[in-house]
């Protein structure tokens, strides 16, 4: 089990720049700030859309969901809506997917099986 959260970022240049953040480790209250800071770096560098690849995440708790909510607000600070069009999540574990569903995030953020599917959905 991973001690820290590691985040690798790549960028797809298209009509709109999309940053793909590959998360590895645990997203908890100890690493929430790391996730938010890395996302802010990508957004400040010009990315208008984000994909969070969660296939390497071994734990996701409420702190991680607060981070994802904060990131969605960074991407669309003026919008109040039921679904965030600028952030997509890929391959959460069954436990992480259950957290999304329990907190109602599955109706707020699209969840995809692959990065290609997520890219195509923007």
């Amino acid at each position, binding site marked *: *089990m*991973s*001690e820290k959260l590691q985040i690798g970022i790549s960028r797809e240049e298209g009509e709109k720049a999309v940053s793909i953040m590959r998360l590895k480790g*645990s997203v*908890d*209250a*100890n690493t929430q700030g790391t996730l938010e800071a890395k996302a802010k770096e990508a957004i400040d560098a010009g990315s208008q859309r984000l994909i969070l690849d969660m296939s390497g995440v071994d*734990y996701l*708790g*409420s*702190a991680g*969901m*607060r981070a994802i*909510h904060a990131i*969605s*607000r960074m991407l669309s600070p003026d919008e*109040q*809506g*039921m*679904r*965030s069009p600028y952030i997509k999540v890929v391959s959460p574990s*069954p*436990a992480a997917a*259950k*957290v999304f569903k*329990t*907190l*109602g*995030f599955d*109706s*707020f*953020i699209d969840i995809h099986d692959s990065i290609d599917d997520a890219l195509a959905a923007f």
Partner: protein
Amino acid sequence: MTLKIRADLGQLNRIREYVTERATELGIPSAVFDDLRLAVDEAVTNVLVHGYGGAGDLEIELRGHGPDLHIFLRDRAPPFDPVGNAPRDLVPPGDRESPGGFGIFLMQSAMDEILHRETRDGNELTLVKRGVLSTPASSHTPSSSGNHGN
């Protein structure tokens, strides 16, 4: 076996590992582990952030009670009942600028019952998961190593 630890948020991973190890020793089905880790992580985070404001002493004990699992979380923080003070409704993510109540909502969804009591030193939170032990469990492990995992 009780985990006694001077904890901060950097210990969350270690605490989740302890929950897995102890649940395995008790013979709890692995399908339940995610719920147990989630509930304990949220409870500990709540104590560290809101009770201690960072770091403090914690005791975590997993004990069978008939077919049920009781997880005790003891602290020396000022008295606070997270369940009694929880928001009545979850504020959903799309509705407000600052949604809330996520942690306690996840704890309650993962466990069957959550009890709080004030102790002489602080608080004791009991997280109950019913029907996860196939045989009545003793409160005493059979050896000091508790060596009967699978």
